[in-house]
C-alpha cells in the first residue's frame, strides 16, 4: 500500500511502485483531468505539481510521489477557478482543450516562481506541446494572470 496525498486528501493505493503517477491518478483515483499525450515526458499533458514543482506524471513512478504533496488540475483551486483558469477563460485559450490542464499546471508553477515573467521566460518555462496551436493565447493569459496579481497586491496591502 502506498500513501499518496492528492489535492489535500490522503489516499492508500495498492499498485505497483513503478506504475507512473499518471495512471494512478487517472485509473485508480478517478482524477482524469491529468492527461496522457505521449507517455515519454515529451508533451507535458500529464503535468501535475509535486511539492510545488511541475512534474510530468507519465514518467514518474508513483513510489517517487509517495509522501509528497500532489496537486492535479482538479485540486488547483477550491472552486475550480484559480486566477490562471480565469485568465484562460477570459482569453479563450483552449481549443480542443486536451493539453490545457498540463498547460495550466505548468503556468501556475511558473507564476509562483516568477510573478512577472517576460515572453522569453514563458517560452523557456512552457515546454508543453499543443497540437491545436494555442500558444499565443497561453502567453497572453499568463501575462494577464500576472498583471491581475500585480493589480490585486496594492489593494490587498491596503486592507492589511
Amino acid at each position, binding site marked *: 500500500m502506498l500513501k499518496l496525498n492528492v489535492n489535500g486528501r490522503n489516499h492508500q493505493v495498492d*499498485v505497483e511502485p513503478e506504475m507512473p503517477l499518471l495512471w494512478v491518478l487517472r*485509473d485508480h483515483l478517478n482524477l482524469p483531468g491529468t492527461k496522457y499525450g505521449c507517455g515519454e515526458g*515529451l508533451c507535458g499533458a500529464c503535468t501535475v505539481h509535486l511539492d510545488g514543482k511541475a512534474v510530468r506524471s507519465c514518467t514518474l513512478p508513483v513510489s517517487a510521489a509517495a509522501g509528497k504533496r500532489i496537486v492535479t488540475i482538479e485540486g488547483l483551486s477550491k472552486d475550480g477557478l484559480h486566477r490562471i483558469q480565469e485568465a484562460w477563460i477570459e482569453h*479563450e485559450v483552449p481549443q*480542443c*482543450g*486536451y493539453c490545457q490542464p498540463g498547460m495550466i499546471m505548468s503556468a501556475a508553477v511558473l507564476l509562483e516562481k516568477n510573478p512577472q515573467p517576460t515572453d522569453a521566460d*514563458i517560452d523557456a518555462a512552457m515546454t508543453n506541446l499543443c497540437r*491545436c496551436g494555442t500558444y499565443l493565447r497561453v502567453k497572453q493569459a499568463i501575462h494577464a494572470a500576472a498583471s491581475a496579481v500585480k493589480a490585486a497586491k496594492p489593494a490587498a496591502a491596503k486592507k492589511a
Partner: protein
Amino acid sequence: MTLKVNRREFLKVSAAMGGGLMLEFCFPFVAQAAQVAQAAKAFHAAKSVVVTEVNAWVVIHPDDRVAVRIARSEMGQGTFTALAQLVAEELECDWAKVSAEFASPNEHIRRKRIWGSMSTGGSQGVRSSQDYVRKAGASARAMLLEAAALRWQVPLAECTVERGVITHAPSGRQLSYGQVAAAAAKLQPPKEVRLKDAKDWKIAGKSLHRLDIPDKVRGKPVFGVDVALPGMLHAAIAQCPVFGGKVQNMDASVAEKMRGVKKIVSEPGYVAVIADSWWRAQQALRKLKVEWDAGEYGKASDATIAAMLRAGLEAKDLPQPRKLGDVDAAFTAAAKVIEAEYQSPYLNHATMEPQTCTVWFKPDGFLEVWTSTQDGEASLLAAAEVAGLPPEKVEVHKMMLGGGFGRRGGPQDFVRQGVAIARTMPGVPVKLMWSREEDMQHGFYRPASLVRLKAALDANGKLLALHSRIACPSILAVLMPGAMKNGIDFTAVRIFSDMPYQIPHQQVDYAQRNGHVPVGFWRAPGQQNGFYRECFIDELAHAAGQDPLDYRLALLAANDKNRLVLEAAAQAAAWRSPLPAGVHRGLAVVEGFGSYAAIVAEVSVSAKGEPKVLRIVLAIDSGYVVNPDTCRAQAESNVAFGLSSMLYQQNTVKDGRIVESNFHDFPLLGMSEMPKVEVVFANTGGFWGGHGEPGILPLVPAVCNAIFAATGKRVRSLPLSRQDLRKI
C-alpha cells in the same frame, strides 16, 4: 412535438441530483449506479421537472433556460458554440440562459436523421448547417410567439419578443419562453420563416465566450479518454506494424498471468489486452509474444513509394480533371518554359488525445458507446455493424474531441475495434485507448505526393500555359468511393483543377497511385497542392522578373475574391514597405473550404540556415463570421499546424511500417516558435465559408516563398528540417 422528459433528459437530471456530477449534456453514465438509483427515486418524486422540445434543436426549461442541440462535433474549432449562437440569434432568447448539448445519434437514426448531417469535417460545421439551424431557431420563435398570442387571445402582430420575453405592448402583458414552451410545442411549425439579415445580428457575429471552455480549464472529464463507468475495464491495443498484415501466432502465457489482466483478445489485424487499468493492460501487451504475418507489403519503403509516385508521373492516358486550350502547342510557342518537381511526405494527424472508444454491451441487449468522433452517426453505424445489432439498439455518446483534424471521421477504426474488444466481455464496459505509438503508426495519413509542373511564359513573362501532373494516393477511393468522379479524387487535384488564375492553356493529369499506407482527410485535404502551386507561381514571377504580388494580381480577374483577400493581406502587411535587415516576405493565396485566404509571411533565416517565422498576416473572406474570436483562434491553429508540418514532420516507411513513433521524431511546433498572427476579416457576405482549414492553404507556400526571398533557395520538398537553407 410535446415531450415527456426523455431518457437523456432523465439521466441529466439524475446526474445533477447524484451530486453535481460532470457535464450534464454528454456524460450521463458517470454516476455510480447507487447514485443513479437514488436520483431516479428523487426524480420520480419531483414531478415538476418538465422540459419542452419545441423542435429538434430547441429545448426549453420552465425556468427559461434554453438547451440547443448540436449535431456536429466539437474538437476545438468552436462549432458547438457557433451553432448555438445561430439558433439563439433567430430564437431571440437570452444568451446568458443558453447551453448546448450534443444531439443523440440514436435519436437521430430513430427520428429519420432529423438533425441533418452529424459529420464534422471539411470546415462544414457551420457553413453547411447554418441554414437549417437558423430556420429551427426562427421556427421555434414563431411558435412561441403564437402560443403567447393564443393564450392572450390577441393578434400575433401585437406580440414582440426580446431575450426570451414576449410582450403584448397594448396590454403591457408579458410571458417568458419557459411559460409558453409547452403550448408552443403543440402548434404546427410555420411553413416559412424569414431569417435575419446579418447586419441585425445581436448574438451571432459576436465574439461570445465559448460554451465548452470553462469545463475544459477545470479539467472536467469531457473527453473520450475520460469516460469512467462503474466496473469499467481498460484495453490497450497493438496492431500489426505492417499495414494489411495479420496475427499469425500469439503466446499469451506470460501476459495473461500479469497483475490486473482480465482478457487477451486476438483479432485478425491486432491483439489487445483488457485489464483493470490502462497501464497494466499496456504492460501486459508488451509481454505478448506475437508473430505477425506482414502480408504482401513487408518490403515497402520510402524508395518503393517514391518509385510508385514517379511511375505515376510517367504514365500515359491519365484522367484530366482540367483541360483548357492546348498546353503542348503553347509550350512550342513559348518564349520560356519552366519546369519543377515538388513533393510532400505522409503526415499523421497526431491528435493530442489518442484514439479511444468505450463500449458497453448491456445486459438488456442495448449497446452503448462513448467516443471522440467527428461523426456520431458514422460511429453508431460502425458499432452496429460490428456488433450485428440494428442501429436503433445502439447509442453513441459524443464526447469532446482532444483534436480531430480529419482523423476521427471517415474510418471509425477505433470504434470497430472498441466494439470487437468489448464483445469479449459482455456486460462489462471496456475503454480502449491507443498508445501514442499506436496512434503515430496506425493513422490515416495525409497522402505523400509528387507533382511535375511545367509552365510556358511569353516574352513578357506572362503565364500562357500550365501543365500539372499529379501523382497522389486517393483518399476518396477508400473512404468515400461514391465521391470519386471519372477516376478523379478531387482532394488530390484541387487547387490545380479549380485554379482562379486566368491562364489560357491548362492541363491537369491525375495519376492515382495508392500504395499500402492508409490515407485520410488531414486538415484541409489537398493542402499540399497549395504549397506546390503557390511556390511555383512564385518561381514564375521570379523568372519573369516581376513582384510576386503584381504577378498574381495580373492573373486574377477583377472581381475575383482571391484578389480581394490578396490585396487585403498585402495591405495589412504593408507588402511594399521596406523591412528590417534580415527579415523577408513571401505571400500566397488559395481558396478552399468555402473561403478565400491569403497570407503574407515574414521570415528570417540564420547563417546556419535555421528559419524563424516571425509574423503571419492572414486575410480571409468567409462571407460571414459567426464568432470572430473563434475564427481568429482557428487562424492561429492553422498556422501552428501548418508550421509543424512544414518545419519538422514526415512519416517515413521502412519494412512496410511507419518509422516515427512519438513526438521526439514527429515534433510539434513549440511555444517559442509560434509567430505573431494577425487576421484580417475581409468578408464580402452573400456566402458561407469555413474557418477550420482555409488558413493552412496559403501558409506553407507563403513561408517558403519568404525563405526564397531570404536565401535564394527554392523549397520544393518538405519538411524543412531535411533541407539546407543556408544562403546561396
